[in-house]
Structures are given as C-alpha cells and as structure tokens.
C-alpha cells in the first residue's frame, strides 16, 4: 500500500511538474531511459532532458559512477534497459565493439538543427554518437602563492618542477604538488596524458600491438616520478576526489586535475573563499621541449541503444536534444566546457580551452585501449615507489596487456 502510494506520488511529481515544458519538447510518445556517469554537467543534461516528461512520455535516469560496468549488459538485452547512454571517449568503444548502438544520421537530419558539425562522432561515415562537452586534465594553480614567490605560471613540466622546488626551498609549502596517481585507472590516465604530450603513439600503427617500450615512455615515467617527489608521501593512493580537500586546506599550490571539477574549485559557495578566488587554470604543461600540452582530450556525449523500438529511440534523441540544447547551456555555462552552439569560454573552462588551443591530442578511441589502460594501471606503481626500473615497469605492462589482448582476441 505504502509503496503504491509512494510510486503514485513520484509519478505524479514526474509528470505533473514540468507541464509547460511538454509543448517545448513536442514528443508525442515514448519512453526515455538515461544511463550516465555522475558529475555536475551530466546532471544538468539529464535534468533538462527530464523536463520532456509528460502524460505520454516517461523520462527516467540512472546516474552512477558505475555506469561503465553496467552499460554493456544493460544495452545487450532486448529491449535494452536504457535507451540513452551518456558516454565518454573511452566508454563508447565497448558499445561500438558490441554493436549495441544505432546510427543517428536520420535523427540528426530530422531533429538535430541545433547541432554543430564538430559534435557529430562519425565512424566509417555514420553518425554513432553526439558529443556535447569536452574534458581534459590541466594545470590548477594558486595565483596568490605563485605571485608572492615570484613564480611565473609554468607552461612545461620542467617549469612545474622548478616552481615546486622553489616553493619547497623557501619553506612555503613542503609538498606543493598533487596529481591523481592512485594505482590503477588514475595513474594510467596520468601516464597516457603525459605520454601523448611527447607526440608518440601508444600502438604500432594499424595493429593492436603496444608500442610503449621506448624512450618517450621512459621520459614520461621519469617526469612523473620527479613530480611525485613534490607530493605527499601517500601519492600512490590519491584519486581525483581526494585532490580538492588538499587544495582547500592550502596543502598544495599546483595540481593537475580534470576540467570537469573546476567549477567546484572556484565555486562562490566554497568553504574557503580566499582559496577559491585565487584558484586559476592553465593548459597542461608540455614535456621534454615539445609544444603541445601533455593531456588527452576527452569528449562526453550520448548514444542511442540499438535494441529499442524506433519510437523510443526517436523520443530519446529528441529529449537529449533538449538536454543539450543551447538554452540549457546558456543557463549553465559554468557546468562544463560545452561543445554546443553559442557557448563562450567561462573562467572555469580556460584550462580545457587552452589544451584545445595548444593542440593537445585526443584520448585514443580504440577498442583495445581499455586493456592497455588497465595493464598500465596495474604495473606502474612499483616504479613510482622506486621498487623497479622504468624499463621493467613498461615490460610488465606490455606483458600484462599482451595476455589480456590475446584472451580478448585482439592479438593472435
């Protein structure tokens, strides 16, 4: 009884609330079920899409950081559990590999007037996904601390190291740096970022064979290790979420972190307004005299499931068009670095914008990239902690990747 009551109230709230929006979306019928990661910008998009709910259109969402682990099983069932999956550069590949998403050309033609060409993810000529925001790791710095100590904003890792040394020598901050180097996904992401800055490729062209046992990779690892000597001794357990408390406590003056977190760092409602005001962003540093920022560019976007009715697919696409409409973006310019028409760079977005401008390279959208990412994540910690050589760490990562790639059928 109670449950029934709650369900009715929830449904009533869902369909009764945004009555005015119904006309705006103009969807006659269908079910929209959204699966996505859980961060500020995606909440904005999902909330806007939810305004399309009406008597005949249901819009539900599941926003969870576990999205990547459930998306393939959830979209494999027929009908699929979700009609829309919000994905990023890396999480789209398992869906493409599984053939679980539908081409969007027809919908883009009919309902995609607001889209820009750069938002369309084309694979072999067909539009498979729509991107709406860009993301990348870049430099966060304390303007006040750097200025007081006469340090220019660093643009290369050499300058970052020099700045950190100066802050330490002058007794300002003992460990002024922090980067998410947690063993596993994060340290692999840091490696990929820095490695891409050297201009080298991760795979031998046209094959799934890794190409990380080289000078560039060693340079990358050595730079990372030098950076870690200016971090807290626990650096091997730091993930992105653990960086902001350190920043707010004033324990660090420079961090490399995600563009999608900048809004929280400079938020006016921050618990330490002085720190928030002095927080500024710049492009990721360059490495080894190269000119491009050492950062992988990521996009976030959405796909429409294949195993659903055409009616639901169309309703989903149209609801998502409202979710990422220029109006939504205009109301929430601070939430992300939007790729949507009419967006202008905000102070929170300068880091990612500078990466883009500097010619940073995209994160590889390859079906076997996830395997390499995992193999790197499992095998770099020992080097970072001084227990083995860079060559050994890279050899271990290569061996782990080869086993996984063989088992997954990417290599003979």
């Amino acid at each position, binding site marked *: 009884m109670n449950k029934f009551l709650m369900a009715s109230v929830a449904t009533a709230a869902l369909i009764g609330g945004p009555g005015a929006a119904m006309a705006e979306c103009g969807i006659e019928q269908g079910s929209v079920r959204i699966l996505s990661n859980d961060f500020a910008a995606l909440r904005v998009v999902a909330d806007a899409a939810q305004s399309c709910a009406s008597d005949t259109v249901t819009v539900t969402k599941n926003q969870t950081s576990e999205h990547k*682990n459930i998306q393939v099983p959830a979209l494999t069932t027929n009908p699929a559990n979700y009609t829309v999956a919000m994905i990023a*550069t*890396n*999480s789209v*590949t*398992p869906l*493409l*590999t*599984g*053939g*679980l998403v539908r081409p969007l050309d027809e919908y883009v033609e009919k309902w995609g007037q607001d889209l820009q060409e*750069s*938002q*369309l*993810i*084309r*694979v*072999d000529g067909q539009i498979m996904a729509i*991107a709406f925001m*860009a993301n990348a790791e870049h430099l966060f710095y304390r303007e006040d601390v750097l200025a007081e100590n006469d340090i220019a904003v660093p643009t290369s890792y050499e300058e970052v190291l020099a700045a950190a040394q100066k802050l330490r020598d002058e007794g300002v901050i*003992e460990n002024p740096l922090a980067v998410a180097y*947690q*063993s*596993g996904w994060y340290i692999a992401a840091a490696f990929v970022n820095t490695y891409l800055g050297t201009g080298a490729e991760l795979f031998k062209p*046209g*094959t799934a064979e890794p190409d990380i046992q080289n000078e560039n990779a060693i340079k990358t690892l050595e730079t990372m290790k030098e950076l870690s000597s200016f971090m*807290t*001794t*626990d*650096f091997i357990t730091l993930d992105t979420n653990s960086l902001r408390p350190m920043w707010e406590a004033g*324990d660090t003056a420079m961090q490399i972190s995600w563009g999608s977190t900048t809004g929280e760092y400079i938020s006016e409602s921050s618990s330490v307004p002085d720190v928030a005001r002095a927080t500024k962003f710049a492009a990721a540093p360059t490495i080894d005299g190269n000119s491009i920022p050492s950062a992988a560019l990521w*996009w976030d976007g959405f796909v429409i499931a294949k195993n659903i009715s055409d009616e639901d697919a169309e309703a989903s696409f149209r609801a998502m068009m409202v979710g990422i409409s220029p109006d939504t973006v205009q109301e929430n310019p601070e939430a992300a670095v939007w790729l949507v028409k009419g967006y202008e760079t905000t102070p929170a977005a300068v880091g990612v914008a500078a990466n883009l401008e500097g010619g940073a*390279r*995209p994160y*590889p*959208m*390859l*079906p076997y990239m*996830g*395997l390499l*990412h*995992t193999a790197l994540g*499992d095998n770099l*910690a*020992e080097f*970072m*902690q001084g*227990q083995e050589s860079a060559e*050994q760490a890279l050899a*271990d990562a290569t*061996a*782990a990747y*080869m086993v*996984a790639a*063989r*088992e*997954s*059928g*990417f290599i*003979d």
Partner: protein
Amino acid sequence: MPHRTFLAFIWPSLLAMILFIAVPIVSVAYQSFFVEHQQVMTEVESCGPFGCKSEMRVDAAAMAELRSESPMGRFNGLGTYTNASHLAFDEVGAAWRGSDSLGEFIRQVMNLPFYKALIFTLSYTFIVTPLVIVLGFFIAIAVNTVSARLKGPVIFFSLLPMIVTPLIGALVLFWMIDARGVIGATLQAVFNDPQLSLKASPTLTWVTLFVYGVWHSAPFAFVVFYAGLQTVPQDTLESAMVDGASRWERIRFVTIPYLMPLATFIALMQLMDNFRVFEPIIGFSAEANASSLSHMIYTDLRSGDFPLFGSAAASSMLTILGVIILLFPVLIRTWRDFGRKA
C-alpha cells in the same frame, strides 16, 4: 540406518549442493578453457570534436555471427592457466635460465602477477590466522573473568570489529592512517620522520593489512572460544586448584587441551577466509603494494572494457586448488580422528 532412509533424508541437501556448489564450479572450470574469438577488425575513418583519424574498429556484425556459431569462444585448453598472468611457465623458465643467483630468480618470479598475489595471500593467511587464534583466546579468557554486570557491554565492544562491514572498517582505518590522519600524523610525530607513510611503503602496507585482518577476525575466534569456556569442566579445574596449579597452569593444562578442537575449527574457517582476502586491499587502496588471488579475479572481471572471463575462471580454479591444498592437513587429521572413534 538403511540406505533408503539415509537417501530420503539427504537428497534435498544433496540436490542443493549439486545445484549451488558443484554446477557453478564445473561451469567455471569449463569457462577457464575458453577465450574470446579472434576479433574481426577493420580500419575506418572516425571523426569527432578533435578531428578525424583512421582507427581500428571491431566489426560487430561479423563478431555476432562468430559468437552465435560457438558461444563459448575459442578453445584454449590450459593456455589461460599457463600464460604470463597466471602460472607463467615460460616466464618462470626464462627466469631460471637467465638468472645467476637464487635471489635474482626469486626476484624475477615475484615480479610475475600471479606469484606476487600468491605470496601476499599466503603471508596474510599464515600470519593472520595464528594471531587471530591467540588473540581471540586471550580476549575470551579476559572477558570470562570480568564481573557479570560488565560482561554484556564488554562482549558487545569486543565484537564490534566483526559487526562493522569489512569495507567500512577498512576505509575508516585507511583515513586514520593517512599522512594527515590521526594515526598517520601521530606516527610521524613519534618517529620524527615526516616522510613516514603507512600507505606508500610496501612493508608497512603489508603490516597494516595484517593488523587490520587480525583486528577484524579476532572477535570471531573470541566468540567461539568464549562459548567453549562456558563448558570447561569445573571439577577438573577445581581439582587442579587443589593440586596447587597456578592460574596459568590451569589454562595451560586444562583449558587449552579442552578447547583444542575449537582451535582446529577456527583455524579451518580462518584459513579459508584469509586465503580469500579481498576487501582490505580495496578499502586501503593497497593495490600498489599488495594483491591477492581474489583481487586478481576482481580486476579481471572489473577493470577493463571487456571482462576477462577466461582469466577470472582460471584464477578461481587456482584459488580453489589453493584452498584444498591448505586444508589438506587439517582434513586428514579430522579424518584420522574420525577413524579412531569409529
């Protein structure tokens, strides 16, 4: 009991055991012999917000066809068991031939993921299990002497580590041992070493995990021993007292022999439990310094874009094998005792 009656009694549980224990194990064993089909890949042009690039793509339609022909994948025999991520026969052989000293050979083998995980798992099992038994026993003895009025609260607090969800307990301790946490900062002050980190050093991480393991499991041993203590024959204890035995001698010569079967039981349970050590590694973010067989299975299934079912199945089978080997001495002993009684 006639066989018919025995069968009538046993068949429901036998059926349940076959369904829920035997069938899954057989299915996992079968799975471990297979790997994914060869991926059919083509090079296609893909474009996005950051430009166009020619990239490899999997032909989903061709793969679907392959999978419908043979859903299990390609037969790989024992290939998964012997590959570099598991028993790594080739790598161990190469290490044997390529190293001049035993130390060098061991160092190379310990760099292989499976052996790395195995050595931690075994160390954890053989260090934590005896400590749990000893500590649990002494807590039980201590609690047993507490006055009746205080017993309730004392027992409750002694059981707390077991009541707390393992992952939560691990996380709470993880934050406390952080360089800026209450334990971590205190240790730095005590040893006057600002670089001291329980999370960064492999040895200290291991010690932390062992301490956590003992902290978490001791209440289990305590509760079992405490129950046992209530049944220690009072007349034997009293006659020991008449003989002039001290408190320690009474424990040593009456209580301990009497509780020995319980110790075997706890050892059995703890060996099995500790061999499957997993939560503390996640809770303490200790992946950098420690990995266990269970953690290997977890990463195979969870960390990549595609779950490596074959690898996970092979690791599972190796874990089961490990548990069997571990329990063998205890089982043989139980069997002998049984034979003696019959």
